[in-house]
Structure formats: C-alpha cells, structure tokens
C-alpha cells in the first residue's frame, strides 16, 4: 500500500500543479479578462514552484531494494516531465481568447 502511494506521488504532483496553474489562469481571465505582465509572472511563478516541488521529493525518496525497478522514482520523473512539458505554454501563449 505504501509502495502504491509512493508510485502515485509523481503523477499526483503533476495533477496538483496542473490544477493550480489552470485554476489560476481561469481566475486571472475571469477577473481581468486578459493575462497582463503581472498575471503572466504569477503563472510562471506557479509553474516554477510546481517544478521546484519535485526536487525535495526526488531527494527524500528512499532507494528501491536491489533487483527491483524503482517505480516510485520513475513515477516522479514522469510527473516532473509532464509538469515541465504540459505547462510550458504559460510562458508563451496568449490566454483568455
């Protein structure tokens, strides 16, 4: 059960960051109708924070036993890759239209 939880960390973090950035984007569009410089800075900051959140987990995760695939770590890398790749549009795309 603990192992399953560890496997879920990476994808769950991705999900959380995705939700956070997506929600923030919706909030900014709903309030101001466009993402200005400040809004974009906030979005990029949220994205960066999300990426940063992976680093301590990657460090703290105990190594898998020998002769075994380190699936929790693979899950973390998958989550990190997905966070970087799927949310990088916050840096370039225009937003509320």
């Amino acid at each position, binding site marked *: 059960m603990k192992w399953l939880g560890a496997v879920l960390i990476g*994808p769950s973090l991705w999900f959380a960051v995705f939700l956070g950035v*997506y929600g923030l*984007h919706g909030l900014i569009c709903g309030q101001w109708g466009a993402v200005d410089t400040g809004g974009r800075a906030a979005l990029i900051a949220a994205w960066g924070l999300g990426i940063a959140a992976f680093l301590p987990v990657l460090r703290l995760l105990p190594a898998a036993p020998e002769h*075994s695939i380190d699936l929790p770590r693979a899950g973390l890398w998958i*989550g990190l890759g*997905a966070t970087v*790749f*799927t949310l990088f*549009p916050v840096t370039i795309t225009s*937003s509320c239209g």
Partner: protein
Amino acid sequence: MTDIPSPGQTAPADTRAATVHIPASPAQRALPLHRLLSQVWANDDGLWGQITAVSHTTLGLRFMATAFVFFAIGGILSMLIRAQLATPDGAFLDTELYNQIFTMHGSIMMFLFAIPMLEGLGIWLLPKMLGTRDMAFPRLTALGYWCYLFGGLIMLTALLFGVAPHDGWFMYTPLSSAEFSPGINADVWLLGVTFVEISAVAAAVEITVTILRQRAPGMRLMEMPLFAWYMLGTSAMMLVGFPPLIAGSVLLEIERAFDWPFFDPARGGDPLLWQHLFWLFGHPEVYIIFLPAAGVMSMMIPVLCRTTILGYGAIVAAILALVFLSFGLWVHHMFTVGIPHMALAFFSAASVLVAVPTAVQVFAWIGTMWKGHPQLHLPMYHILGFFLTFVMGGLTGVMLAIVPFNWQAHDTAFVTAHLHYVLIGGFVFPMMAAATYWMPLMTGKRRIKGLGEAAFWVILIGFHGTFFIMHLTGLMGMPRRIDVYPDNPEWIWLNLTSSIFSFVLTIGFALYALDLILQATLGKRESRDPWGAPTLDWAMPIPSPNYNFASLPTARHLGRDAGDIIVPLARGEGMLPGAPRGRREILVTSVGDATPDHVAMLPGNTALPLVLSSAICVFVLLMLASLYALAGLALLPVAALIWVWVRGMAPQGAMTPVEAAPGLHLPIHHRATTTLGQSGLMAFLVANGTLFSSLLFGLAFLSVVTPGPAAPPSAVSAAQVLPAFALLAAALVLALGAMGWRRAGAAWAGTALNLAALGAVLWLAVQLENPTAHTRDALRAVLTGYIGLHVLVAAGMSAFVADQYRRGEISPEVPGAWPSCNLWQRYTTAVTLITLAVVIAQGVIT
C-alpha cells in the same frame, strides 16, 4: 530452448528462489490427480452446466466468443454505412435509420466488442499466466458475463424494432435530452451501456485483485510477465475511467426521466458537463483498449523472436506514464468548444506527450526483434500489420493533438480514418495475433496452413484500401455522420473506393473467422507448449483443463521453459496438489513479493449470477418502460439476491489450516488478515470514490465554469437543515466508533445508528427544494440520494454481521464480515462528511 529466461526476469532465478523457499511436494501419479481435480473444478453437465459455470476458462472464452459475434454485427452495420455512402444520394437507408446504424456501430464496437474482448482475454489468460486456478471472484465473472449479454441484447433488440440510439456514440446533450430525442432511443443507450458497464467494473475489480494477490509464490510484482503489468494498468484505468461515464449516464437518464436539469443551460446546467464526463472516460478508454493489446504484443514478440523482451523496466515505466497521462488529455476531443488558447495549449501538450511512452514501447518491441531472430509464424504477420497500421494511426493522432489542425479535421472523415487506424491497428491486429497464438491452448488443435495467411493479406489490403483514402476525404471537407452529399461530387470516387475496399476487408475477417473455426473443428492435435514459451500459461495440458494446474507452480518453476515444468506440475510437485479436500482451493500471496499468505476456497458452480443479473435486467427494462415506481420495487429482489450472494461467502465447514506444501501450513481465508474479498471491496471503493468525485466535479463545474442563470435564492434556511446535518454526521461517526468494538452488540448498535442516519437523510430529502427548478437543487438531490443509498447499504451490512453473530459464525479468530462492514462504514462516513462540508460551503459562498 531451456536457457531462455522468463521475459521480464530481472533477477537471477536463484535469488528469487531464495526469497520464497517452498519445499516440493512428493510426486504422485498424474492421472488420478487429474481425475480428482476435474471432478471438483468441472462445469456441470450439458446446458445447465453453461448456466451455472463460474470457471474463468469457460467464461473467458465465452466473453471472447460473444464479443466476436458483436464484432460481426457491428461489422455488418458498417457495411450498411459504407453501402449508403458509396453514392452521393444514398437512397439505401433513410436518415433516421442511418443515424441509428452509425450510432450502434460505434457503441457496439466500443462497449460490446472491444471492452468485453479485453476483459475476456484477461479473465481467460491471467490465471494461467500467473499460476493460479481461477480468478479471485468466479461468481462475479459470471455475473459480469450475464450483465454484458443482457445489456447487449437489449441494445440489439432496440435496433431490430427501429428504436435504437440515434444520437451518435458519444450522445452529446442537448441532442440526447428528452426535448430533442423523445422516445426511448437514448434511454436504450444510457441504460443498456450502464448495464454492460457492471461487467466492466466487475472485471476491473477482479483483474486487479487477481494480479496483486494470486501470483505464483516468488513471482514478484517487478518480475511478473508484462501482460500482467499491462492488465494491471488497464484495470486501474477501468476503475477510475468508467465511473465518470456511469455518473454522466445516470445524470442524463435522471434528466430525461424526471426533468432534473444537469445539462439544460436554461436552468443552470451545461451541455459541456456531459462532454467533460464522457471524454474523461472516453479518452482513457482508448488506452484501456490499447494496453491489453500491447500486453499480448510484449508476450508474443520475444517468444516469436526466440529471445527475451528488451527494456522490461522501461516498458513498465511507459505503462505507468500512459495510465496517468491518458487522464490528462480528454479535452483534445473538445478543442472546438471554445476554450482559451492557453488552456488548449496545456491539453495539446499533454496529448502530444502521451506519444512518448507509446514510442518507448514500439521501439522496445523493434529492439527485441533486432536482439532476437524473428520467425514469420502467422501471429508475426498480424504483429507486422500492427506496426504498419498503428504507427500511422499514432502519427495522425499527434496531428489531431495540434490545435489549429484539429479545428479543421475535427468531426471529419479524417478523424474516422484516424480512429480506425488506432483501434484496428492497435487492438484488432494484436488480438488477431493473440488468437492465432493462443488457439492451441484454447482448442488443443493445430491450425490448417495457408488460410490464415490469406486472411491476413485480404484484411490488410481491405483495411488500408478503406481507410487510407478516408484521410483525404476528411481533408476535402466531408464530415462524419452525414448520409448524403449531393452537392459534393468531388467526394464520390473517394467514398466509392472506401466502400469497395470495405467489402474486401469484410471478406478478410470472414476468412479469419473461418480459419479459427476450421482449426477448432478439423485441426489436428497440437503438442504441448508449441511455441517453446517461457511462461506458465503453456505449462499445462492443451486444451487447458478447468483447474489449469494439478499443483500450483512456485519460484522453482518460474523463468523456465514451459515444456520442462508441465510434468512436475502435473505430478503434483508444486503447491496444493490435487483437491484432497474436495474444495476449489487456490493460493493467495502477498502483493509485493508474492509470499504465500493463505488458502482461499472458491465458490463452485451456481446459477445465482444468472438469477441476479436477470433481476437487474428486470429493473433496467422497467426503467426503459418508464415504470419508475415498479422499477423501484424491482430493486427489492436485487437486494435480497445480493444478501443471498454474500451469505454464500459466510464461514462454514472445517477451519483447520491447510498443508499447502510439505511442512508449510497456511490458514484458510476465513481466518486470514486480508482476504481477496476485502481487497476486492477496496478496489470497488476506488471506483466508487471516482464516481463520487465525478459528482463533485460536476457540482464545481456547474457553479464555477457554467455561464447560465444563477440559482434562485434558497427558500430553506440554514436553521432548518442544520439539525438534520448534525444528526446525520453524529449517527455516522458513532456508527464508525461501534465498528471498532467488534461485539454482537456493536453490530446491532451499528444497524440502529445507520438507520438513524437514514432517517436524517430522509428528513433532508423532504426539505429539498424542487429539483427540477435549477441544477443546484438537482445536484443536491442526487447527492442526497447517493448518501442515502450508502447509509442504507451500511445498515444492511451491520445487520448482516449481527445475523452472523446470531448464527454463531463469528469468533475472535474468525472475523466474518466485520472488516468489510468496517471499510464500507468508513467510506460512507467520509463521503457524507465531505458532502455536508461542500453543501455548507456552497451555501456560504453564494
């Protein structure tokens, strides 16, 4: 070939054997063992035996055969579609009938062919590959089959009477709402598909539990055959993927039947909520279909190339990535609904990214071919067909993930072409390969040379002739789902070409079916382990007996050529040899390392699954007939039968430990810490929790995103409902406390407290505002119903435990139904408290 290690073996066999040392049982004579096991595990005789069968071999094959029949029916419907489109004025079908036919073609292929086919494959193959004798819940396998069959028959009957669903297989509202689709057509889809989904959830639960708890001792999770990893991914996705569809279908059926607005924009609802719920299921569904196919590829390619799989670890990681990423890209089916560009970009990126784990697998398979020595047996033909077709389908999928191109190609024949490339390339070709590969194990027969190869070439030519050109048809502007195109003569030659080749394709499938039938009937006897495979599924006589293994394989038998371990296992040198106690016994192992945990006794042949699914069928039919009061009454026999069902699991008979191997005494499951049943309940609660989350997602979506009219001010004050809230919360928290106490009195107290909670729910229900007025009130009514149902079941479970005390079935060593009851109570209390918090928060904010 004995030096070939098991695909996916990462640790040398000796370290594995050291983890779990189990002494060999003394060898016996094989024939008496076989006779005894056959007697215990066989189906009853004749037709009655088919009705009462619970064996995974029987039911897995029957699932697959039934799915193939539905494939043929869906194929005939596609022929009608192609005949209609062959000419621009298509006087062949009238539009209403045409709409029913393409809707049924899609629905049948998805829900009555692909999903049941992969379930059947998993049910048939997994126990053999993992080294056990049956699935975790044999009666549930049978229940799933009957629900699938009855649901499918309801939909087919509707087609025969001309009242089949006609809104397209994704049933977009408001087209599928009561206003625009009066009549029962849409209800047939919503109720029929949901009925069939019972079998999907059932299969997902038992596949999960079987893979996690029934592997041969020593077959660690990290070393199990890749097919098991793929099916674990599939079943996890089914547990999380199907509930949004079920939630959406239930809401839409309630809207159609009782006019509660969930999708009606005039009353705060939103048609887009349906699309979100549908595609939250619909996109993972594509991977649910692809993963098992990829699983059989990963098993067959190494064997047919005389080598081991390349990159086992990378493939497992790729499965993990697919499982998660596929839940983050459903919006790519909705790129044209009007979503801001940045949001589109997120989902576009996620959709593109999902191609990476797919590429990892494809290259791992090609690398395996490089590493080994591929042999051009018939399954390899279909594998090559897979590579050609699926790669092209995957690439058009990447194109469709690119938003601007999607805006042009969406809902055109280009998408039709893409999805057929993916589904036929990524599912049908691997399944055809798998069928030819495992036919000897199913039938014990050798195939007749030549016909299979011919069928392959006809299918390949027919398929690409039909669908390759269809990409162009779509880019030339032809939308899907139109029946005539009198103003567009430029599409005529394209459509005519597709139509002609589609008949070639049909001939190919007919030849393929003929080949299988000839092999099953006229084929010569095949020898055991014909492929020289290193997996347990071939370490048994062919055709496989109902009990699979005369004695269960252990670490000593893993990673070896199947041909070398058939005899030792048949002579009872593994665990649990024979059936000396006259019971259907299997071994339950731990999740990670597969160390022996306890011995489970599985139920025998029974007609109960058929009876229960018939009772559910009566309910569905009464709902279809709009006889809602009677339908409510029809739930009583369902509840009674479920009680009888669970009674069948009650502790009885000798409770003495079983000597599973010399000197190794294992408890029987009534005295085990975590039984298969509890694992199954946990898996079910994951699905149930997703359903609940889907309802909350709906609530959040409708209150935050939907632009519709605000809810009218509430006529009920907080002071009026708070006492009921308090009573409900208090009763459930106290009931939870009672569960920890484990006495007869606690069971009675739990029953009483849950009944009090039920009273509070009813009190709330009478205070509900008119649910037809606004979506807010409709959602609150649905949540009230959801909680009421769970509290009712909790009361029933407490009463069941109290009844077990009365019968003297529970003792300090034998917990009976306590752990399951406790688990359910915890879930019920949690969802109730969450719901109360959400409703209070909603009231405070607005």
